[in-house]
Structures are given as C-alpha cells and as structure tokens.
C-alpha cells in the first residue's frame, strides 16, 4: 500500500523548491508546524511565498523563515508586533505583504480547496483591503470580489495521524490547520503521534486522509519566547 509516512522531517521537505507557495498552520502559539519550519530552514528554500495568519514570534514559528531571509512575499492577516524579523525585512523592503482580513484569509483558502473560483463579501468594503478589487452591489449591499488562495504546500501540525493520513488536532491548536490541509497541492503533516489505521473513530476524524500527502512524527516544539 502507498506509504505516506516519511522517515524524517528533512525527508518530508526535501523537494520543496525555491519560489514555493507554502501555507503554515498555527495561531497564538498553538498548532504551529515548528519542526517542519526548522527542517525548511535547514533545507534553505528561498523566495517562498508564505501564507499564514501571522509572521512569527521573534525567531520562533515563522520568525525563523524571516531571520534566514527565505521569504519574499507574505499573505497574512496579522503579522504581529513580536514578528521582529519580519518587520525588519518588511521595513527594508526585502519582503512584500498582502494584508487580508482573517476570516477572508480562511475563505480564500477554502475556495481554493473547494474548487470555487471567487466569491463576494461585504468584509473590507470601503477599507484599504478593497483596493484594486472589483466592487458591485448585491441585494443592496456593497460587496468586493475575493479570489482563491492556492498553495503548493501546506505545513500542518496535528495531534494524531493514522498511517493513511487521517488527522486530529489538540484543543485550539486546530485553528487554520484543517483549512490549509485542504487547500494545498501537497500537505505535509508533523504529528505528535502516528497511530495505527483504524484507531481514530471515523466520526471524530477532523482532516480526512484524502487531504494528507506526507506524515512525519515529531514531538511538539513550542516557541515559548
């Protein structure tokens, strides 16, 4: 049977090329694929377009990618005041940024996942985020057209993965991970625990295996800085 379990973090990211578009899960210190991010730092992939809610906490989480200057463009909702490596690169114009409202970030990724080619929303109308976007009135409401966000890879942090790729998450570490897992062409998962197929109740699977392409076991790594 086709194998999704990879022997190491480095093997799981070995083919991620320069210029890749990568979604990174995580929010508020929880659910970040920190082990995969460190592996990508070792691999040294450059010119990444990073899609993430924020831009790291000092050298933790996505911070490492900016410290190493591996990212050229970011699509994010809240880069964050503690994302100093990002802020430095941004100030130096070494990285560009598209700011997106958080729920719209989710929906644009979900649209990519669901094969939808655009959607209208009232969110952001009349604000800076409406700049350059088509506007029209629907049912009396001003709306703007938002486009899907696709990615080559999603880096996901799960609690449990079975060997087929069914995933569960721990508490609020779920956050962006299930959406990104659905939206990327290749979804790479670091899981606290790899469990035998059949040990996750089919009713409690959060991310079905169809969305998961690579799994690697890695003990949780939390940036506590």
């Amino acid at each position, binding site marked *: *049977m*086709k194998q999704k379990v990879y022997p190491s973090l480095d093997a799981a990211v070995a083919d991620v090329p320069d210029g890749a578009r990568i979604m990174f899960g995580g929010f508020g210190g929880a659910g970040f694929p920190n082990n995969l991010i460190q592996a990508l730092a070792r691999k040294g992939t450059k010119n990444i377009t990073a899609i993430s809610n924020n831009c790291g906490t000092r050298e933790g989480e996505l911070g490492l990618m900016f410290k190493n200057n591996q990212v050229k463009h970011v699509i994010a909702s809240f880069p964050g005041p503690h994302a100093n490596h990002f802020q430095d690169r941004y100030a130096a114009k070494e990285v560009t940024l598209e700011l997106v409202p958080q729920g719209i970030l989710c929906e644009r990724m*979900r649209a*990519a*996942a*669901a*094969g*939808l080619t655009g959607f209208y929303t009232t969110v952001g109308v009349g604000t800076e985020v409406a700049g350059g976007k088509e506007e029209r009135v629907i049912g009396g409401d001003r709306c703007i057209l938002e486009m899907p966000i696709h990615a080559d890879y999603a880096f996901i942090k799960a609690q449990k993965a*079975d*060997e*087929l790729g*069914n995933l569960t998450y721990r508490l609020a570490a779920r956050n962006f991970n299930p959406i990104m897992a*659905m939206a990327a062409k290749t979804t790479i998962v670091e899981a606290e625990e790899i469990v035998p*197929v*059949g040990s*996750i109740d*089919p*009713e409690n*699977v959060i991310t*079905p*295996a*169809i*969305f998961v392409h690579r799994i690697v076991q890695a003990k949780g790594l939390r940036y506590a800085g």
Partner: protein
Amino acid sequence: MPGDASQEKPVAAKPRLTREQIAQRAARELTDGAYVNLGWGIPNLIAEYLPKGITVHFHSENGILGMGPRAKPGQEDFDQVDAMKVPVTLIPGASFFHQADAHLMTRGGHLDVAVLGGFQVSEKGDLANWKIPGAKGSGGIGGAMDIAAGAKTLIVCMEHTTKDGAPKIVKQCTYPLTGLACVDVIVTDLAVIDVKPEGLVLREVAPGWTAEEVQKATGAPLIAKSRVAEITFV
C-alpha cells in the same frame, strides 16, 4: 478509418462486453492508494473487480471516505449508506464528514478518479448523463455535475450504442449536458478510448472486434494506432 461494410458481419451479431466486464476493465484504471468516487449503474460494479494487492479509498458524496463492500444481509446499518442508498461497510481508516466537505472533495480536485455512467460523450469530452430529452418527471442532477467538474481523471462507463444501435459517442451531445470537456477515458462494451487534445484515441477494442468495426459504431472519428490491442481479462 473507413471500412468496407459489405465484407463485414453485422455489428450487432458480435459479442460485446457485459456490464460486469466493462466494470472489470474500468477497475484496472485504478491505482494503489487512489481516492475514487463511483457513480450509478455500471460504475457501481467496479468495486467488485479491484486488481489484487491494491487499496482504493472509495468516496461517497453523502460524506464517507473508505467504503468497503455492501453490508451482508442482516448486518445492514441504514445510517451507513452510500449515494445509491445501499448499506455499506467501512474499511479501516474510514471517515465521515458533512456533504459540503464531501463535495469540496469532488469539486476541488481531490478525487484521483471518478467513474460515471453516460448517455452521451462528445469528441471534446463533453458528458451528458443526467436527463433523457422528453423523459417524464422532474429529472435530477445529484452529484454528477460537481464530480464531472472536479475529478482529476473522469472515466465514463457505458454501452457503446443505444438499444436502437445509435452511437453514444458523438461529435456533439444532443442530450442535456452534465459538463463540458470533462471526460478523460471512456470504457464501453466495445472499446477503451482516451479523450485527448488531438481527439478520441482508441486504446483497446473488445475481443474479436476491429478498430474499423468500433469506428462504425461511433459517431465521432477515432484515432487508432496501426495496431490496437484487444481488451484482456485476467
């Protein structure tokens, strides 16, 4: 591929593949680890004929991934039915989800293969499979349009001709369409045909049939290599 009709037996007289044989042949298009949706009719028979040693994850648009065979009589659970309302079993590693996620999978390009039945397929790969013109009643679409639009590979299984002998593979569909340019492979009781940018490529013919004979039963030109293989059954 014009043939000399006078030298040939009437097309109807030669044996064609049974519905089960069409399913058996189509099953060989599935590869290990594939995520697959099977539609009504002949496609639904495919699960019985999977090549040995491979695992295929069957998807149902009502919210199941990892369906196994039908439940045995007396062991049915009517909350665990497939899209045909048939009580099914699960294989280990199955999952349940709601119908919006089930169709996120169909539309979003997550299914490796979908197999649908067909009334007509055009030379561009347009599919008509949901409504017979003039039929009584409301008709119904179901999941076919989402599946046709989104599957990475769409296989259509059907008889090569109607009961009246009219071709079902045509230049342009006359039945109401399910989707445009969506079909990749056609498996019929006479042939396996790939829909390619250059046209309909005849890959295999039914045992005893020639490329010319299949062409005669087809309403659009077929591209054939010098020697087209016969469909085999192991």
